[in-house]
């Protein structure tokens, strides 16, 4: 009875919070923008005026005295002049303005890309920390090597498939050399399938703007690849992982990425069949996280559960990770990197509505915060204790879920999305483990797969119609708007994206990895698994100077059933 009361209390609390947030959202009608005061028409600039400005600019002698206040550094003298005989012209000035816009956007996109790259360290810490000590080296190595596997595959082929037809991005100079999208005609409409320009970043795509977008998209792709390593840790053969990662980076991820971001058919659902603004995924809840989580599910099923995870009656045994400090620090690194993930997806900090980067960053923080609370409070009420690893997963769940809607929702929407994700990740972990009997050592399938799908869905529900990225999105004029703000067709577009993730991406990943199982073999031997993957696969323990405690008796019994005893543990 008390369990029923507790569960009912949890549900009522969540419902009440949701209703309160919803009421607050509706009450907070954004104030109408103040009408701009009339300003006198500026006098047209003339070459004579520019010459006057040049004459009045600080001289070399002035600058030689130093500029502690920064008042004379950066003047009209710093604008490049095309023809020194003519002097500074309006054309020179306009060119510099344009180059400044592109330079700002380049720097923004690159720096945020660097932050996302650093997330690889966060993933490594979280995954290794949640695994047993005898597999630490192997788990760290998978996260280390996946960066190289993915980058190489993406450079060879993946980028071309994903972004080969992505020309038209005004933030980065147009990217006109990426103008090769293979299409097909169906139901009297043209649908993009995959790109063709950009292999080896050679030929016409050897372009400054293309290099920027390559770096940014590559680090996103690598995030998807690294998700799989967590779900399959502690029994995935390194060779199989290496082959699977290359194929995922070359084909699986870029294909869906093209459909959503590269001018493919999912993004065209708005222009072709009138479904909202087409499939909208601002920073990749679907493209990155759901693809990663769903592929992780497919591979986990094929690899099978760890020895000792499930008992003969189907009940599961907790297998505790070896380093909770690594998990917590890893989560913070991921949260930090997410400031690159979401705000960086504007691909610019100048023009075309890009000043919304502050809103996106705050939405990201808030969703992470409420995601943490959602998981922490749920587990506290359910088990009576605060669960550190699940709280970390709650933070990540909130961040994953806000990734798609971050560019389109208010802070209230972000908070709702986060708290739902925090509770959802706990329920999903339990379902996947206890009902589907799929072993996921780090909860990657739930964090990234389940919450990624929730993030995609939430765009169709909570996009508030106030964003403005150049007046249109996916070729459809206006702002992305969800069901609760008046556009139910956006929800349908999101559902098509979800169906594609579940129905196509899962099936493709499943079949590819079945082939890898056939040729390579996905799983290590029983002896290797029991001994720990570090020495058999890597040749060295993760912590060679430590003396390890024996594993729990239930684990020793399960391993003994195979006639194998572990060799790295103290007797």
């Amino acid at each position, binding site marked *: 009875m008390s369990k029923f009361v507790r569960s009912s209390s949890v549900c009522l609390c969540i419902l009440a919070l949701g209703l309160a947030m919803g009421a607050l959202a509706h009450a907070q009608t954004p104030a109408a923008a103040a009408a701009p005061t009339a300003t006198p028409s500026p006098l047209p600039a003339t070459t004579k005026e520019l010459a006057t400005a040049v004459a009045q600019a600080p001289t070399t002698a002035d600058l030689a005295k130093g500029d502690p206040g920064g008042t004379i550094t950066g003047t009209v003298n710093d604008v490049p002049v095309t023809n020194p005989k003519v002097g500074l012209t309006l054309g020179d000035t306009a060119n510099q303005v344009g180059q400044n816009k592109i330079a700002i956007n380049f720097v923004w996109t690159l720096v945020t890309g660097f932050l996302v790259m650093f997330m690889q360290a966060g993933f490594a810490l979280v995954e290794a920390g949640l695994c047993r000590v005898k597999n630490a080296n192997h788990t760290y190595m998978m996260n280390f090597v996946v960066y190289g596997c993915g980058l190489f595959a993406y450079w060879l082929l993946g980028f071309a498939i994903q972004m080969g037809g992505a020309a038209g991005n005004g933030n980065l100079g147009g990217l006109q050399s990426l103008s090769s999208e293979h299409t097909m005609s169906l139901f009297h409409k043209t649908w993009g399938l995959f790109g063709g320009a950009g292999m080896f970043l050679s030929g016409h795509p050897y372009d400054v703007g293309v290099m920027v977008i390559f770096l940014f998209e590559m680090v996103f792709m690598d995030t998807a690849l690294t998700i799989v390593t967590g779900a399959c840790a502690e029994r995935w053969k390194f060779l199989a992982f290496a082959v699977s990662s290359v194929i995922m980076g070359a084909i699986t991820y870029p294909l869906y990425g093209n459909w959503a971001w590269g001018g493919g058919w999912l993004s065209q659902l708005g222009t072709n069949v009138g479904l909202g603004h087409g499939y909208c995924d601002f920073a990749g809840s679907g493209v990155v996280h759901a693809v990663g989580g769903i592929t992780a599910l497919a591979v986990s099923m094929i690899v*099978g559960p760890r020895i000792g995870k499930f008992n003969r009656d189907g009940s599961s045994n907790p297998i505790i990770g070896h380093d909770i400090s690594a998990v917590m620090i890893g989560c913070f690194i991921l949260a930090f990197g997410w400031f690159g993930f979401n705000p960086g997806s504007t691909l610019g900090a100048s023009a075309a509505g890009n000043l919304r980067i502050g809103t996106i960053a705050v939405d990201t923080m808030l969703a992470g915060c409420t995601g943490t609370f959602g998981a922490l409070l749920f587990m506290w009420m359910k088990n009576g204790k605060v669960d550190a690893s699940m709280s970390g997963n709650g933070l990540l769940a909130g961040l994953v879920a806000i990734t798609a809607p971050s560019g389109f929702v208010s802070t209230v929407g972000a908070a709702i999305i986060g708290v739902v994700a925090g509770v959802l990740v706990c329920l999903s972990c339990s379902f996947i483990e206890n009902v589907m009997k799929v072993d996921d050592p780090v909860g990657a399938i739930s964090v990234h797969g389940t919450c990624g799908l929730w993030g995609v869905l939430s765009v169709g529900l909570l996009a508030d119609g106030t964003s403005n990225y150049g007046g249109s999105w996916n070729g459809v004029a206006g702002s992305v708007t969800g069901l609760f703000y008046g556009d139910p067709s956006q929800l349908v577009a999101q559902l098509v994206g979800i169906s*594609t993730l579940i129905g196509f991406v899962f099936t493709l990943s499943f079949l590819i990895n079945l082939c890898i199982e056939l040729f390579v073999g996905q799983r290590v031997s*029983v002896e290797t698994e029991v001994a720990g993957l570090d020495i058999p696969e890597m040749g060295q323990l993760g912590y060679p100077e430590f003396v390890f405690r024996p594993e729990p008796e239930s684990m020793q019994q399960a391993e003994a059933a195979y006639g194998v005893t572990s060799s790295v543990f103290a007797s």
Partner: protein
Amino acid sequence: MAANKSQGSYYTLFLVAATVLCAGLYDISSGIGILLLILGALGMVASLLGMLKIKSLEGRTALKPGPGFMKLIGAGVCALGWLITLYGMHLTPSVGGRLVLALVGISVSLFGIIVVLPAAFNKNAVWKA
């Protein structure tokens, strides 16, 4: 047997062949490109066959053979749900109708993932031994 030199060799061949194959794709309009494409494809096949040859050296794994056909059926059901969703966008122009058909398609796919595939994999599961 775990990691060994043969694995390293065949994976190196895999990466080199993938590079050559992609170089062929890049320049497919020329004769050299087609030659590279063929060489790359042959290299990929050779690497996979090599990995197959050394697969048995790994030794026994905890996995037991399962009903392969049922796994393919599960994947097929999953894909069928996606096709239902896509066709639904063409079948009706109404938002409500498309919403319903999208949900039907997603449900069919989830049935394949949550019911059919786990049943196939858990039939001879590791923990049932």
